[in-house]
């Protein structure tokens, strides 16, 4: 088993830079998810590990071996594709066997091949389908064949490029659990690319959030949720995402406040910003509560908002409101009576869970030193 190390790796396609100076260390046996919007360079990064794209600059290592110039088949990796990439003319058995026979130089004896195929088929519940063609299988079964083809070669690193995207919602949840179980069982390094933050949050040991070819933040799922390094991460992680609004810092009593166009928000910790500084204020939907303005004390803080829509999800409600030019979402307990669409409300933010960002660098103020006191749930 081996980890993967990107050391200032850059990938250029002509004039376009897909990945720039990426440094990232994936530990041995770790489940690392590369998360980002489409076109951010995450798949390019994965394809560089596979050797399907050349590294333009920097050094890429698998274990202790620099692999910049090592051909894909000698990298001891296996990859699962979004489209499964099964050979349609071959049976499931032949598909699973292909990495063991394709390279004549290190072809295994037939007996051992057969053993490995049976073992992989057993692990993934494919024993009854070994003689079928991929075209006769469902999407979920095909994906499992692709996984079997990957595990049969016992690689040092598994690479997965959005492997669940072609599955329906129910199957995706199920396969997600199976993948986590597979990782637990194999204890091999997984590098998994997705644009779906739910997949990232539920499966990863650590997440690397990527945008515009740059790593924005690397951390455990709860860490990137609780302590986003910048506005991009804050807005990308979380569903619904973090609400943000521009304002100016003021001081009052022990803490401080931020004056926005829609009202003043109390902030427990000013994270090093001073009165008069321009900031972007961020607050997650679960820390915004609507209040009836008619029962307000005059001068009480909060953001004046108008209810535009209410989404009922069963276990919670999302209150979509218009605050100045921004749309802000509050997460409500479904047991409480919600306001009606069109109502004027005041959104009150929990002062201890307000984030401040520098509008010019988009970095979170006080990153690494002072963090909001959001509940840190033990993650695993």
């Amino acid at each position, binding site marked *: 088993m081996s980890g993967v190390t990107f050391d200032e790796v850059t990938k250029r396609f002509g004039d376009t830079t897909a990945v720039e100076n990426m440094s990232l260390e994936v530990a041995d046996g770790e489940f690392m998810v590369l998360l980002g919007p489409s076109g951010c360079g995450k798949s390019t990064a994965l*394809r560089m590990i*596979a*050797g*399907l794209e050349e590294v333009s600059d920097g050094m890429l290592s698998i274990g202790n071996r620099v692999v910049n110039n090592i051909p*894909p*088949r000698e990298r001891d*990796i*296996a*990859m699962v*594709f*979004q*489209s*499964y*990439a*099964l*050979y*349609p*003319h071959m049976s499931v058995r032949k598909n699973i066997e*292909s*990495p063991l026979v*394709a*390279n004549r130089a290190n072809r295994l004896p037939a007996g051992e091949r057969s053993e490995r195929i049976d073992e992989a088929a057993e692990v993934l519940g494919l024993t009854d389908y070994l003689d079928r063609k991929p075209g006769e299988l469902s999407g979920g079964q095909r994906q499992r064949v692709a996984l079997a*083809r990957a595990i049969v070669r016992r690689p040092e690193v598994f690479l997965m490029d959005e492997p669940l995207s072609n599955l329906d919602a129910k199957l995706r949840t199920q396969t997600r659990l199976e993948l986590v179980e597979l990782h637990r069982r194999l204890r091999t390094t997984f590098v998994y690319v997705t644009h779906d933050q739910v997949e990232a949050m539920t499966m990863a040991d650590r997440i690397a959030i990527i945008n515009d070819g740059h790593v924005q933040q690397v951390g455990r799922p709860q860490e990137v949720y609780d302590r986003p390094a910048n506005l991009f991460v804050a807005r990308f992680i979380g569903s619904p995402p973090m609400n943000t609004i521009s304002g100016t810092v003021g001081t009052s009593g022990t803490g401080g406040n931020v004056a926005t166009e829609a009202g003043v928000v109390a902030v427990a910790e000013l994270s090093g910003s001073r009165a008069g500084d321009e900031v972007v204020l961020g607050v997650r939907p679960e820390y915004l509560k609507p209040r009836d303005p008619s029962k307000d004390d005059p001068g009480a803080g909060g953001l004046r908002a108008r209810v535009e829509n209410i989404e009922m999800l069963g276990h919670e409600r999302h209150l979509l409101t218009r605050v100045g030019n921004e749309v802000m979402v509050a997460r409500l307990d479904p047991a409480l009576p919600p306001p009606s669409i069109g109502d004027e409300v005041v959104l009150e933010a929990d002062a201890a869970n307000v984030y401040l960002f520098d509008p010019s660098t988009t970095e979170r103020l006080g990153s690494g030193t002072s963090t909001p006191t959001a509940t840190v749930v033990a993650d695993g």
Partner: protein
Amino acid sequence: MATESTVTAPPTAVERPRPPGSGLSIGLARAGWYISLTLLAVVVLFPIYMLVIRAISDPISFINAGQPLHIVSAQWDVFSRAWSDAGLARAMGVSAVATIVIMGAQFMTSVLGAYAFAFLEFPLKKLLFAIVIGTLLLPIEVTLVANIQTVRSLGWLNSVQGLTFPFLATALGIFLIRQGFLGLPRDLRDAATLDGFGHIGFLFKVAIPLAKPVIGSFLVISFLSAWNQYVWPRNATTEGAWQTVQIALRTLTTTRVDQINLAFAGAIIAALPLVLLLIFFQRQMVRGLTAGAVKG
């Protein structure tokens, strides 16, 4: 009463109401199609029908009878006479050998050329491909004299190599099979690379099996053009022993003018392999020719 209720019952979802007269117009449209297709079939099949009639009829009696649309004084032994008089057995043998060599060579060169143009990156790729495709515009007559000179200087007149050499590679094959290869998903090629397939492994284990319909249809085209060749073998052979089937037919036509039905019978015999091929592979041919037209 029952009839009434049936008539006045509201239309169900299954039996949607039709606009009045639509049944009739569909029937008319269908009849129109059948009539046009029948006429077209008559136009196409009439010469073949006449070929059979004239082959079997005694030629003098047929002309004296005013060239009717039916058999006159049937000569059923005409096929066996044509077979022996024209030496069709040997001529068909020569044609078969030349055709097999051409098909085999075209398969290899087209598949390799198509692979390079579809999957490899090399300098001047687009220009080279344009030049290859450009050769499609040159009819055989343009290069005939130069090619005959070459074959003559190599001492290859009256030989299998002489009959086949200019046709061992074809731009049509490269183009068609390249289209088939381009239809293969990129992920499949990437997966094959990661599995450890080299160029040859990927070509023969993955690309060719998946491009089978296109390759099959190309081989049918290759067979047809090789079997039907006339101009090249006419120039590349000088001895009767090296006559191909089309040359033998020509000889039969010019040497036995009084027995012209022998030539017709010979033509029917020479066409039999093609007819069999078309019967067995027509679906393949159509599928291959339309492959790549619509990306699936």
